[in-house]
């Protein structure tokens, strides 16, 4: 062992060559699997396309028409918008149960500020959005600074906001006709425009500003998550908050901003809700939390945080929309539809898992 002191020197002559393993080809299925593994958002997209194709085959033109297709978009717009917000939160390994309540109370505020207090509708809308943002920020503060678990904070907030909603609104609906006459801005996101309708304006593809808002929100978040530091930090916080903190991420700031943005998007969802249902209704949106989480998870975002692509939940929401409409058109009754949607949820995720697994 006379070389004890300098044996390490022997390494210096080592080649700096990069290890080269032979790449292995195994045919189509593994290649597909690998490709999907690298682009996980494609999995829900494929499920979506397949389910549209299957229902299209079963139902023909009734389903496979511009009218029905855009109808699905309209039906999922609220859940879609909220799912975008929910995705952000879930990427940080959190969860937000208060999304639906925030959306509804935001819409009630927009309505009541306009009609009860006579505030100009533009300002009332801003107040509604500000309210959503503020509630979100409080959630974020409790989670980031007080270090309370997101589930429990937003569970509490859900109850608080919902009860406040009923107390404040006195469960009064503001009617569509009144809004249309006096504050049409509230219904802005419900504005429709048709493409390819018949002379009476029937049939054809129908889009609403709300649907466009949904798509824009997803596009915006996709950009922010991939192309900005804020987005990378969201993934880092969800992945391992302690490591993120140690490696220089301001975890508090990220969490508070994520919940605040979530609140803001819920405010927008509240606005879109007015557009969609015409009126301001305090009882709407009760299931938005479960529905948005379902969309997110079908969309392939891990509930443990840090993994998944934001476009997934959009496809997730659409998958549920396609199944709901498709099954109803097939004549399944409500309970059977629920049962089948339950099966769908499990199988969509099972397919996803299958595609991802094996040594890809």
């Amino acid at each position, binding site marked *: 062992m006379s070389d004890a002191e300098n044996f390490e020197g022997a390494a210096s002559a080592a080649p700096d060559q990069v290890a080269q393993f032979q790449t292995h080809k195994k045919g189509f299925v593994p290649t597909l699997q690998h490709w999907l593994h690298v682009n996980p958002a494609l999995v829900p997209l494929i499920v979506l396309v397949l389910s549209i194709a299957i229902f299209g085959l079963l139902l023909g033109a*009734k389903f496979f028409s511009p009218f029905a297709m855009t109808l699905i978009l309209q039906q999922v717009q609220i859940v879609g918008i909220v799912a975008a917000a929910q995705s952000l939160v879930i990427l940080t390994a959190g969860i937000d149960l208060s999304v639906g309540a925030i959306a509804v109370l935001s819409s009630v505020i927009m309505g009541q500020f306009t009609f009860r207090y006579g505030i100009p509708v533009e300002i009332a809308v801003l107040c509604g959005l500000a309210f959503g943002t503020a509630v979100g920020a409080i959630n974020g503060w409790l989670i980031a600074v007080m270090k309370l678990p997101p589930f429990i904070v937003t569970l509490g907030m859900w109850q608080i906001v919902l009860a406040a909603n009923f107390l404040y609104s006195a469960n009064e609906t503001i009617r*569509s006709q009144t809004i249309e006459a006096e504050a049409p801005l509230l219904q802005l996101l419900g504005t429709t425009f048709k493409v390819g309708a018949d002379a009476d304006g029937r049939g054809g593809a129908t889009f609403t500003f709300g649907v466009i808002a949904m798509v824009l929100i997803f596009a915006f978040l996709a950009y922010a998550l991939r192309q900005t530091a804020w987005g990378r930090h969201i993934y880092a916080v969800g992945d391992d908050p302690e490591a993120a903190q140690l490696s220089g991420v301001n975890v508090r700031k990220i969490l508070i901003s994520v919940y605040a943005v979530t609140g803001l998007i819920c405010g927008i969802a509240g606005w879109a809700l007015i557009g969609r249902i015409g*009126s301001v209704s*305090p*009882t709407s949106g*009760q299931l938005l939390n479960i529905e948005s989480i379902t969309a997110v998870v079908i969309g392939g975002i891990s509930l443990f945080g840090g993994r998944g692509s934001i476009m997934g939940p959009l496809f997730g929401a659409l998958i549920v929309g396609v199944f709901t409409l498709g099954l*109803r058109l097939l004549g399944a*009754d409500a*309970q059977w539809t629920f049962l089948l949607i339950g099966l769908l949820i499990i199988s969509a995720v099972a397919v996803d898992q299958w595609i991802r697994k094996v040594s890809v």
Partner: protein
Amino acid sequence: DDHKTTACLITKTDTNPFFVKMKEGAEAKAAELGMELKSFAGKVDGDHETQVAAIETCIADGAKGILLTASDTSSIVSAVTQARDAGLVVIALDTPLEPIDAADATFATDNFLAGELIGQWAAATLGDAAADAKIAMLDLAVSQPSVGVLRDQGFLQGFGIDLGDPNKWGDETDPRIVGNDVTQGNEEGGRKAMENLLAKEPMINVVYTINEPAAAGAYEALRSIGREKDVLIVSVDGGCPGVENVADGVIGATSQQYPLLMASKGIEAIAAWANDGAKPEVTPGKNFFDTGVALVTDKAVDGVDSISVEDGRNLCWG
């Protein structure tokens, strides 16, 4: 068969026996008339969006008409208008829309009247004791849906209590009211709400309940403390288990409504519309077709019309 006339039935939920019977009634009638029926329901009471989506689905499906029990009576109006514009006839069942003429017709129970009948009966049964009754109000949900408010306020009116704002419950100041609590319209909620109010005031002697499952739950709570014999429970619905409960003395009186009738009338109206574009008539003197309500009790009192438990049994549903 593509040539069959399609009708839609959209209920608030399909977990409440009331709506289950409504659906059965509609199905039976549709089968008889050779129509196809598609039924939809919200997931929970108050689930408005699912109803909107259901209306849209019916339009997409090319249905001729819709029978609707709306969760949110005024918000649903724009969706209903959309359907009517698309050439469908829309008939409100059980729950009138706001405004009522937003639908082509309404076949409903008068819920306020249903409440009023049990209120009058309770007051008359107590006689002089009504002046210092201790009343528990077991309502539906914190969101105060309109059926719940109408029955609650109808009951108080019938009992002779000042309503305050007739559009909400809980704002009354009469000291005879021990309190309001919510039941979600089921046994469990009924029991818990009753227990809560009993803890507040153990000597409660009149219990208003939103429906019969809630009444059954309230009875269990009373039974567990041995007070089931000295309390008057009144309710609304007239489902078969409820009528049996009247027979057994669990419930003193209940206001019976007729969902099967609503449904079959509704299907007939859609068939008529599909055949010759005829729209249904309303009950004279009212702006809707009243499918009627009857007080079921074996302890009839003067001044309040009622039918016997036996008659109730023959007319009951579910």
